Every structure is written in C-alpha cells, then in structure tokens.
C-alpha cells in the first residue's frame, strides 16, 4: 500500500517515485495511507461535481474520519500554502465542490454518523457526511424528519446542505436549511475548532451560525451539525392540477398565496417536463397538459381538508382542466417520484443539461417563464421548466448536446440572459444552488461594490488568508484570491 501511495504521490508533483510529495507524505502521516488518495483517478473524480464546471484539478484527496483529522488536514495544508476544498456527495450544481487551482480536497463522506438524537430538544447531532434522506429515515421512528428536502436528498449530505443553505420543495412552508440548523461545529482554515450557534434559544454574540450556513465552503468545514427535527404532519394532501398552459398554472400560485394559505409545496412542471417525466417515471401526469402544478398541503385533518378544498377551487377558477387529489400514500409517492426524478430524466432528451436556478417574485412567474422560452428559442436550445413555483424559484433546464459545435456557448449565452431577465423582474441570482463558480461573475449584476465588499469582509473574518474554497462566490476584485491564477493546475493530471 505504501509503495502504491508513494508512487502516486510522486505523480502528484511530477517527480520520481523515490521522492514523494511532502504534502502527501504529511497527510499520510496524519491520516494513515488508506485515508489519502493522490492518484490521478481519484484526483480526476474529485475535480468535478454534478455541475458542468470543472476548471481546476484536485490535489490530494483526503477522507478524514474525525474532527481532529480535519484539523490536521487544515494545518498541513496551511503549512504547505495549499488551499482546501470540502466535498460531500458532489451533487451540487454550481461548481461549489469543483476545485479551482490544485487544492487539497477533503471528502467528508466517511464522517456520516448520527452522533446523538436529543428528543428533549428535538435536535440531532450528526456528522456532515450523513445523507439527507438517511437522517430522516433514522428519526422516522420518533415521528420526526429533517425538513429541507432538495431533489438530490437521497444522495446529498447534510454538510453540503449547510454549505449551500439548501432548500427543496417543502421549504415553502418549512424554510430552508438555515431555519433547521441550531449549531455547527466548524474547523476554521487555521485548524481551530469552534461551535457556532447552540441549542439555547438565543446564543450570545453575532449569529455566526447563520453567517456560516450558505457560505459554500469559504468560511470553514462543518464537522458536526445540530439539526432541528420537525414533527411529521398528521395529515398530508397532495394534488395534481393540469392546465392548458403555464400562465394559468402560474396565476394559480399567486391566487393560492393571496388566499392566505402557505401550502407545504407548490411545484410547476411545463408541457415538456410532463412528457419527459411520464416517459421515465410514469407518475401518472396527464400527457396532454400544457403545465401541471403539484400542490401539497398539510396540517391537522380538518385544516388540511379545508386547504385542499380551497386549492381545488382556486385551481379550477384559474383554468385547471383537472385536479386530482392523491387517494393514498402510494399515489402521493408516485406523484412526487415524477417531480424528484425530473432532472435526471431530462437526459433522455439530450446528453447534457444545464440546470439553471433563479428566483423571481411570484407575480412575475408567468412573464419570466415566457421570456425564458423566448430566450431558449432564440438560441436554439431546448428548455424544460420544473420548479418551486410557490417561492418563485425557477429551474429552467437547458438540454443540449455538447458534442455539437458552438452549443455550449449558446447555452451559456441563454443562461446569462435568463439571469438578466430574472434580475430585471426584481429577482435573485440563485434560490438554492448557490453561486459557486457558475454565477460568481454575475454577482455584480445583483450587488453593488459596497455590497460585495461587505460579503468579502464576512468571509475574511472567518478565513483571513482565503485558503478555503478560493475563487468561488465572490468575483474579482472583491475576492482576496486572484481568480485568474487559480484556473491553471500544477502539471498534467494523468502525467
């Protein structure tokens, strides 16, 4: 094993096997040979996530087993003047886990235990590598769950949820990750451990917990998270409303909210989405619909029934051709299965897709969806809309084949215009995927230099030397790292 590793280590630095990379040697000494991979295959895979961004090349990939080992990695990286990029399941879509430059990558998948379920405080202390859905399964026996449910919840990790302040369909009523995390144990870039927030109602000092959540790995690495557990609602009603067009579906969304309801979730899928979902998931969506809304209300029996009746009435008044209420848990699961598998199912259309993520005011939904369709047509790109309509969180999927010349550029141009349309409508760059590499250079479209300066101050308070996930979120010159210099990796990966 040692022989293999030192050979791999030699490759990292492009040296001969007799002189292993001192960085790798230090990491191996601290973590043991099984927890450090420096071979080209491991580094190649750690250089990408679920996004289409992969500009840098991972350095050695570490698999720490404890907070102490994370501290050791941070200290060693600092000593060698190398940056550090944390990584969960790599399901992020903005390139947050795809390293720039050639940093040390810390894969947190090995730290995936539930440390403690504290029923009296309705929290659980968990390690960051725990899979989101696995957490809910582990507490299901107590009638509790973890509310944020990103579409990748079967694979994505709690650490990744914290880094991205992840949402999901049910965040409409329950709030995003930040509302469900009481405290985070964090290792800072100098190796120090600090607990942010706490189980008490009003922890003293600044809300550093809140500032850390959503910081996309730029403020430190979470090594333990106290997640709040939510009681399962006693009654859930899931409805599928089919419309002749997306505009009437969008109108329903505003009407439902204006009626004084906050449904658990409202998801909109356009005609092409319905077609592709039916092709793969057979969720029972009406294939001839111009758009469908998947609406879920929950609560106690009486209130859920009242809300369901109101939703059905409002949907019909806004032109729904049919509204189906799921009769049982199996039907409900099937309706959701279609929604949750929508993005991957798109690959049945084209080999590549770019899943966009912007937010607009609910009142602007219809107009922005139309503009998105027009933009896609103009660039000759297929667009499919599947999104969290209840909170105005658009997810246009641009499906394409990158093997066609000029296609990637056309998709990028369409993506940029979608951002501009969303911001002009009074929206935001990202609702849940984060900025990462994807939208970094669009940040100045939404924020002034002073705004960005303050964001960088926050980041530098945590990481003065900008060693954590450099080159992400903040554009030059508001980022302390020289982003241009990060793109070049040191030496050819496959050497």
């Amino acid at each position, binding site marked *: 094993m040692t022989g293999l590793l030192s050979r791999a280590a030699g490759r990292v630095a492009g040296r001969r096997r007799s002189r292993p990379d001192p960085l790798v040697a230090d990491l191996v000494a601290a973590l043991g040979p099984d927890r450090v991979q420096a071979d080209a295959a491991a580094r190649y895979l750690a250089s990408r996530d679920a996004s289409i961004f992969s500009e840098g090349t991972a350095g050695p990939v570490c698999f720490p087993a404890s907070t102490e080992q994370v501290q050791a990695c941070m200290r060693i990286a600092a000593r060698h003047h190398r940056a550090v990029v944390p990584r969960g399941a790599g399901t992020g879509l903005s390139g947050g886990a795809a390293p720039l430059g050639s940093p040390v990558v810390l894969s947190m998948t090995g730290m995936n235990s539930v440390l403690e379920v504290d029923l009296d*405080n309705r929290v659980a202390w968990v390690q960051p590598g725990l899979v989101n859905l696995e957490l809910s399964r582990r507490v299901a026996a107590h009638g509790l769950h973890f509310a944020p449910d990103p579409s990748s919840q079967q694979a994505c990790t709690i650490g990744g949820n914290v880094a991205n302040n992840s949402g999901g369909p049910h965040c409409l009523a329950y709030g995003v990750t930040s509302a469900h995390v009481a405290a985070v144990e964090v290792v800072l870039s100098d190796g120090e451990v600090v607990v942010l927030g706490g189980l008490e*109602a*009003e*922890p003293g000092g600044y809300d550093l917990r809140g500032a850390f959540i959503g910081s996309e790995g730029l403020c430190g690495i979470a090594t333990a998270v106290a997640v709040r557990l939510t009681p399962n609602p006693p009654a859930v009603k899931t409805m599928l409303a089919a419309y002749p067009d997306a505009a009437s579906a969008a109108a329903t969304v*505003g009407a439902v909210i204006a009626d004084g309801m906050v449904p658990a979730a409202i998801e909109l899928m356009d005609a092409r989405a319905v077609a592709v979902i039916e092709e793969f998931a057979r969720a029972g969506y009406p294939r001839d619909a111009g758009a469908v809304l998947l609406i879920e209300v929950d609560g106690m029996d009486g*209130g859920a029934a009242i809300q369901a009746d109101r939703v059905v009435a409002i949907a019909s008044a806004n032109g729904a051709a049919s509204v189906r209420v799921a009769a049982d848990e199996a039907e409900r699961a099937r309706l959701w299965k279609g929604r949750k598998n929508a993005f991957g199912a798109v690959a049945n259309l084209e080999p590549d897709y770019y899943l966009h993520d912007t937010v607009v005011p609910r009142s602007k939904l219809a107009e922005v969806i139309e503009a998105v369709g027009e933009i896609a047509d103009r660039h000759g790109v297929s667009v499919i809309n599947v999104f969290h309509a209840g909170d105005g969180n658009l997810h246009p999927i641009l499906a394409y084949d990158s093997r066609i010349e000029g296609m990637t550029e056309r998709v990028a141009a369409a993506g940029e215009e979608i951002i501009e349309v969303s911001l002009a409508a009074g929206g*935001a760059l990202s609702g849940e995927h984060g900025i990462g590499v994807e939208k970094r250079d669009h940040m100045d479209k939404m*924020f002034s230099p*002073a705004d960005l300066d*303050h964001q960088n101050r926050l980041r530098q308070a945590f990481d003065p030397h900008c060693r954590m996930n450099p080159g992400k979120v903040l554009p030059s010159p508001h980022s302390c790292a020289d982003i241009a210099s990060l793109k070049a990796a040191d030496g050819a990966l496959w050497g």
Partner: protein
Amino acid sequence: MELTAPRAAPGAGPGAAAAVDEALAEFAAEVGPSGPVCVRGGGTRWCQGGPGDPEARVVAAPAGVIDFEPAEMTVRVRAGTTVADLHQTLAAAGQRTALPVRPSGTVGGALAVGESSPARLGLGPVRDALLQARYVDAEGRVVTAGAPTVKNVSGFDLCKLLVGSLGTIGLIGEALLRTRPIPQTERWVRAAGADPKSVLGQSRTAASILWDGSAVWVLASGYEVDVEADLGELAGLGDFEPADPPELPPHRWSCSPASAASFGPERLGGDGRFVAEIGVGVVHADRPQPPRQMSPGAARLNDQIKARFDPTGRLNPGRRP
C-alpha cells in the same frame, strides 16, 4: 460620500433603475463617514448589550411602509416604522410578521435586538423574517444584504449577521420582511398543573406554550376546526380554560428547550418568578441571567467580525451582542 449603485427595485421593469429611497439616502448622510454614532428605535430593549456611549451622536432610521404586496407575502418597510404600525397595515390583507410587538418598538429595533416574539414556536424566529436589509455601514455607504425574494442563496447571508447585532455592523435603514397569514383562530387557554412537555408533544396548533412552574398557557392557533380538535385532545392533559396570557417578568434568559422545560425557582435563588417558553428555550424571569461564557474561538470570531465591519468602532459604541 459614496452611495450604492442604483439598481432595479422589485416591480420595476427591465432596465429601470430605482435609486436608493430618498429617506434612506438622508439617513445615510446623517450617519456620515465618521464619529461615534448610535441608532435608536423605540428604546424598548436597552437593557440588553450594554449601556452605549453617551457621547455618541444619536440617529433614528426613517419611518414608513414602502411597498406591501400581499400575493408575494413580503413587505418593504423603513426601519423606523413601529412594528405596531406595520402590523396594522398588514392586517388589512390578513397578514403579519414574526417581529415582536412592543409599545413604540420599531422594526429596526426588533431586528437589531433580534429577540423573537413569545409566539416564536408558531411564528418562527425574527432572524428568519428578514429577507433583505439596506443598512448604512461604518463608512456611511448604503449596503444591501439579501435579496427581494422569499428565497435566496446569492452570496453570503449578511442578513443573519445583522439580526441581533445591536447596530454594531451597520445601521438598518430599510427592511424587506417575510409576512405570514394571520390564522383563522387564535385562542389562549390555561390549565393549572399540566405537564408542559406533554403539551408540547401533543399539541399540533400551539403557537406558544408558556409555563410558570405550575400552570401551562397555550396559544392555540390555526383553522377553527383544528383548534377545536387540538383543544379536545389537550383536555386529556389538563383542565384547559380560556385565559389571558401571563404577564412576562422583565428579564430574558436563554436556555435550551429541554432546560427551559425543567426550569425551577432554585435557579432564581429559590423564590423567583419565571415564565418559560416551552419548545423554544427563552425563560422570562424576575432577575437577569448570569453572564454566559463564550468559547475563546467564538469570542475571537466575534471580535474579527466587528473589526472587519467597523474598524474604528464608531457604530453603537459601548454595545455588543
């Protein structure tokens, strides 16, 4: 003085450039780039975070509701507006916010202090109500944090840092808040001798559960049919009768939910009065909580935050959260 670049306001069409609100610009000018300055709202919670520097110039944020869109469930309001006035405007459309209502208490004050309403169990904490803030920084610039939408992960969450910062990061001039529908029914009931933990485990409509060591008060909130059903179930745990909520003692303790539910007068010297927020962890008591120790690492981070945002220490000197 440098103002933030003009940008589109919600509702503005493409290309429209809505400059910073005039009242906000005036507020920024008043704060200016130098000299100790202290922002004051209704002055309801100056018992928290230190007395403040009497030498500091006192400023007040402008008042008024700028834009309320019921179908968006958001409201844009100037920080000097009282929460009571704001809620009066919102009530016309059947909505409200999670901010606590105190006589003369302002939106900016509620955000800067960061203390949640006693109905936090149902309404959520104050920090989750702030979607976007425009504040004047130590250099006198207007800075925008967050986004004008109900959901946003564009960049770092400076809003969280502002809530509860007692004006030491920046002086909030304007806030975009999340609103919530006012439920069909809200009813306080009380039962002597009920077990607060069982009530928390049982009730599905409680927006607040208060306990003074002997009696439990529940604010049942929601659809009438649900409140009725819930109160019916609660009857198994105690003799719940309609009642006014208890008067809250003046001092605020911060505990974990579990320790608030097992609070006792022994922690107040044997004879103190308290009212605990069950499921939340705030305990209202007749004497102040002993000072809490922050870990050295957390203390160092707090210092670095303050140093980065207000290097000269001119914002609300003498106060620290």
